[in-house]
């Protein structure tokens, strides 16, 4: 494994109202090596997007959200950086692609002009050079008529095209860390395939590390080198992609895999739901948050939060993890 580009340790995010507080992200620690695509998966409300925003330094520093722990990008602790420095780093060192590209663009300015403006600022280019670079990177992500896209207003492009334009920008900026928060969730599957392909292409070409936030196990299985599984604000399992799908160790990971429908060429493969539902963040049980839905839970699980342990190359936070003999 190459050197860590991003080191997150003990990241906690909690929401406060008066004397009450709710922990939304709970002691998150992980590292992101340079040049890898790491998937962050989990169901809605588990804290994926909050984590992504925290990494970009986009959470409000005052107000009801409180953030602690450290986020080190190339040795620099982002939580201690001044807002000005963060602004300088965004785009150059780290960039983000959001779920809904329609809201990421200004609706009354042509797409190409918006992209070129960013490039002029970030890379100190003059107008013609920025324009040329924009056209070049639009062509690189697969647009057959880059000039046409340059001149289009955001509403004239489809969702997939807008997302690809965002990727083109990331390609031109070459950030060291790219955070893609559900980049294909609002897209059709055939378009999704194109966008994911370009994301992988971008990673190979620029060597950027990508944190791919998604709820879709299929998407991360197709793209990622490493996967982090989150449940109720905690990372419950971290493993290499191939290992995670072949031998899930956390019962939640195993349950998630069993609940995900897969296409079979013939009779459908059975799916089995996870009983119960995700507890809301205000009513988290003590101990392991998954205990109430877990078939392997014991008394210990409802009393004490499990510490992280290593099984082969994976990290698992569970009192009763599935060992290899329990391969589902």
């Amino acid at each position, binding site marked *: 494994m190459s050197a860590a580009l991003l080191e997150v340790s003990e990241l906690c995010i909690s929401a406060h109202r008066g004397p009450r507080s709710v922990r939304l992200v709970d002691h998150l620690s992980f590292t992101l090596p340079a040049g890898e695509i790491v998937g962050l998966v989990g169901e809605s409300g588990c804290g994926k997007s909050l984590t992504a925003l925290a990494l970009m330094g986009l959470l409000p520093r005052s107000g009801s959200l409180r953030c602690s722990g450290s986020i080190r990008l190339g040795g620099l602790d982002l939580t201690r950086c001044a807002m000005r420095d963060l602004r300088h780093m965004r785009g150059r060192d780290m960039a983000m692609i959001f779920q809904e590209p329609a809201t990421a663009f200004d609706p009354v300015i042509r797409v190409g002009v918006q992209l070129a403006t960013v490039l002029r600022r970030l890379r100190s280019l003059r107008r013609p050079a920025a324009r040329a670079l924009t056209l070049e990177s639009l062509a690189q992500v697969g647009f*057959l008529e880059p000039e046409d896209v340059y001149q289009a207003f955001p509403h*004239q492009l489809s969702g997939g095209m807008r997302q690809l334009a965002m990727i083109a920008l990331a390609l031109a900026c070459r950030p060291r860390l790219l955070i893609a928060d559900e980049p294909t969730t609002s897209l059709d599957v055939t378009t999704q395939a194109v966008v994911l392909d370009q994301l992988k292409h971008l990673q190979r070409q620029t060597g950027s590390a990508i944190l791919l936030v998604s*709820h879709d196990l299929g*998407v991360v*299985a197709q793209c990622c080198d490493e996967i982090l599984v989150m449940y109720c604000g905690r990372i419950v399992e971290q493993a290499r992609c191939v290992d995670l799908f072949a031998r899930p160790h956390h019962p939640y990971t195993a349950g998630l895999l069993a609940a995900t*429908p897969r296409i079979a060429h013939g009779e459908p493969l059975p*799916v089995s739901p996870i009983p119960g539902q995700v507890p809301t963040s205000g009513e988290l049980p003590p101990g392991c948050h998954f205990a109430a839905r877990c078939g392997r839970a014991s008394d210990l699980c409802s009393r004490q939060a499990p510490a992280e342990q290593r099984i082969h190359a994976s990290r698992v936070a569970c009192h009763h993890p599935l060992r290899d003999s329990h391969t589902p």
Partner: protein
Amino acid sequence: MNTTGPLLQVQHLSYRFPAQHGVFRGQGPGLAAVERVSFAIAPGQVFGLVGESGSGKSTLARCLLRLLRPQAGRVLFAGRDLLAAGPAELRQARRRMQVVFQDPMTALSPRRTIGQSLHEPLQQFRLGSPREREDRIVAGLAEVGLDAGVLNRYPHQLSSGQRQRVCIARALLPGPDLVVADEAVSALDVSVQAQVLKLVRELQRERGIAFLFISHDLAVIQQVADRVGVMYRGQLVETASRDDLFRQPLHPYTRALLAAVPDPDPSARRERPALPGQLSRKPATTGCAFESRCEQAMAVCRQEAPGDHPGNGNPQHRVKCHAYAPTAKPLAERRGQTRDSE
């Protein structure tokens, strides 16, 4: 009710959205959202309708429920033509065909308790005495796996999975023969989605309720459907039994769609995206709607819209593609031939 015939029969249904803006408002051809769609649903059958966004799935569903009035075609529900039905007849039919929408948060009134929302259909259709209604509602909730404790709660106090169950319970209360589920599980997390899919199968098996199950997700469709229809740009391009469709998809679009679904298995990675033509803003040709993206397109595809052909001699497997016309050359002969240059 005629038990041998189909429960719902749709014949050559077309719907065009009229032009909305400018001086030509209400005139001109408008936008064809559903074009000459025909299919049937047997009693107790789950018909899965799949397609990408904008393909006309929801518009079709709204036409069937007569929430929209199609310009052409017929919708026969239990043998009666819904498009010709008067208000009283339509009301009767609607008791027997209910709907579940994608987002339960907007489908339930935020100011009403779950109990009040569930009373509504029974009051509307004057079903049962007030005391019986209470019992039916509790029984209906139990059927979808909820207990009576939710009756006094408000939608925002439930989880999204529970809310969707409430919507399903509400749809089932009037005793429908057909439930139209429009992306009913799309907003749910996978662990909860599997619960709702299981519920749909149980309702179909145990109560013989037919479903029109609409989803953009082929894997979900395979879990619940008996028969599957694939829509592309307003047309039903392929219809087949579930096993036929997934074992041997025939239409090039269905094949591309299947190939594009990301498989949750990292050992089966694909390198190239399956379908070209996403990134062009050029409009479609007058022939086959899929022609510009089809790798097997022939000269005829650009000129003529394809008819409905039986696939591989199976009359139950309908494919709207020139490659399956009786006069077409076998696929093997056409392989290797390149597309005509643009």
